[in-house]
């Protein structure tokens, strides 16, 4: 098992860190012995062939796997030195700190304004209408959607284009002020121009947030990420971390021959 870790592990440096993580769906082991650290204020891309467990790993970072009956995580997932799967940790609190953007844009069938206000409200936000207006504007600007929608905040979020909807979902995630944003193939339903806008947005967000993104698009991983983790299934279909390093390193000088084969499109 080649699990490469760049430099030493430390709670300061890593926003998230997994140690010997195994993930099961009932009896089936989907992910096997993954250990790596996600660097703070960087973009980390998870790549690998379909079914190798990228989404599963991503969902384990904010305990979305809890929603799948039978799903189980073994080993440690450390966030600020605290194991997310310790018995006294509440998944609700974890998700407030670690937000998620899904593959298919999923705005609520509510107005654009209410889509953004939903998160703060359910999390016990206190403030007046003016402050909420500010928060909504700040979140929409953060997702560079403000100029597109500032005149139609009361229209349904579903009336936006696909790319705008995805940025609305990002804005919605920003509104609860998370530290980490997880994105599962956020551009797979978007055209190239919307994709580029999301990538630009990711670079802007990197100043304040740590981003983990799953992607099937090799160019996207190469141009839009700082670190890349390559996953692959082993003989019993359990996903494993093959190689984890700086993105340039992975794409220009991979250590593992399987990584090289995959990124040059020869298998997977």
């Amino acid at each position, binding site marked *: 098992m080649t699990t490469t870790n760049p430099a030493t592990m430390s709670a300061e440096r890593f926003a998230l860190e997994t140690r010997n993580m195994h993930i099961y769906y009932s009896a089936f082991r989907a992910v096997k012995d993954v250990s790596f650290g996600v660097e703070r204020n960087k973009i980390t891309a998870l790549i690998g062939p379909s079914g190798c467990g990228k989404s599963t790993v991503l969902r384990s970072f904010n305990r979305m796997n809890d929603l799948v009956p039978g799903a189980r995580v073994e080993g440690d997932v450390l966030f600020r030195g605290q194991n997310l799967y310790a018995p006294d940790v509440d998944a609700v609190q974890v998700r407030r700190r670690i937000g998620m953007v899904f593959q*298919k844009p999923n705005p*609520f069938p509510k107005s654009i304004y209410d889509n953004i206000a*939903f998160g703060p409200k*359910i999390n016990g936000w206190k403030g007046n209408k003016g402050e909420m207006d500010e928060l909504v504007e700040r979140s929409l600007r953060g997702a560079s959607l403000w100029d597109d929608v500032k005149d139609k905040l009361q229209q349904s979020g579903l009336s936006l284009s696909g790319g705008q909807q995805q940025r609305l979902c990002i804005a919605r995630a920003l509104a609860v002020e998370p530290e980490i944003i997880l994105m599962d193939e956020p551009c797979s339903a978007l055209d190239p121009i919307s994709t580029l806008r999301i990538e630009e947005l990711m670079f802007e967000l990197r100043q304040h947030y740590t981003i983990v993104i799953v992607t099937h698009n090799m160019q996207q991983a190469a141009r839009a990420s700082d670190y890349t983790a390559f996953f692959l299934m082993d003989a019993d279909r359990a996903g494993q971390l093959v190689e984890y390093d700086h993105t340039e390193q992975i794409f220009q000088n991979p250590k593992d021959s399987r990584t090289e084969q995959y990124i040059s499109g020869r298998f997977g």
Partner: protein
Amino acid sequence: MSTDTAPRSRGRLPEGDELHRNVVGRQRVGKIWQSVLLACTILGIIVLGLLLFNIINDAFGGVAVQSVVPEEEIFTNRDPASLSQAELIAILEEHLRSRILRNLEREQPLIERSNADLIELINAEIIKPEIVAVYPLNEYLFNRAAITASLAEEHPRAELSFKSWLSSDFLTSPMSSRPELAGVRTAVMGSLWLLLITVLFAFPLGIGAALYLEEYATDKLFDERSPVGRRLNAILHRGSSIIQTNIYNLSGVPSIIYGMLGLAIFVRALESFTSGSFLGATTDATANGRTIMAAGMTMALLVLPVVIISSQEAIRAVPNSLRQASYGLGATRWQTIWKVVLPNALPGILTGTILAISRAIGETAPLIVVGASTFIVTDPSGPFSKFTVLPIQIYNWTSRPQVEFRAIAAAAIIVLLIILLSMNALAIILRNYLRSKRVS
């Protein structure tokens, strides 16, 4: 492309002429089935049309009215309006027996009554117009000659006129043993009260159970680490899966069985509640447990499985991506259910529930078992009154021999249908309104 050389065992697709014949054959089969389906539809429409025709035919039509004493004879060919009060009183005194006159005087002296009142009195007590024959609409419209001929023979003084048995009087009068005077007010009010109680019980219970089964049933409520907790979890899980699999069976149980259940539980065992005596004052001393409350709870039980099933379907139709979005923002499960699942499922829940409950309005059997009255003239005054409902009233009327009762039964059926259709319309309007509110 030729398959000549292919080994026989590989089979062969039709080509050329054979292909043509094959396609024509398959198209023909399709056409035949299409006409069969069309025939089914037409048959259904015809049956529905016949049903409507039947009802309308009975609810409207002609009546032949004949007075006991001819009007001209009483008023001696004068216009009643032109007569003086003294002349009218004279007519009354001439034709009525002294005992009846004395009674009338005691109610209100005749001299103190207005002319119009006196004329009405003469009409009701002396002339006494009576319905001597009733004709359904089609006979009245298309068989006039035969009707007039038979009338001329049997009731020479009778006058034929059009009558709509469905009238404002019919809607506002209580039950009566005389069909011309009987109305559906008591029954309509009973039906509406029953509806209210049914909704009050079935709606929250049904939606609650559906939410539990859809959103919580797979949950581990107790601590899995202790053996007792594990055991309790297993029992809960077992229980909800038994309910889940049997809910369809429950919705198919004949309604009369729910009636017997209601009789045993709500009428007998819970009598102190359903009779209202727990509140101290019973509104209806003779009702015992046979009240709107008991019937409403029985009906709620009857529609509960359907309410649960349709609510579950509506809840299941809420896209999972919305639940995930909510959880992803740090919502608790209850917040997700209350703020995301329920608002999005509500249009579907309401439609399904209203349709289920509107079926209950047409139910008769369980209500007879739990003791709905068949003849009652006082309006229900609250959930603890005796009551009757439209279907029972209709049943009661259709089982009487006089044709007049058949006519008012048809009119009552129209009232029932209008209530049902307006509930269904309400369901559709509500659903569209809620949908438009969510999306636009």
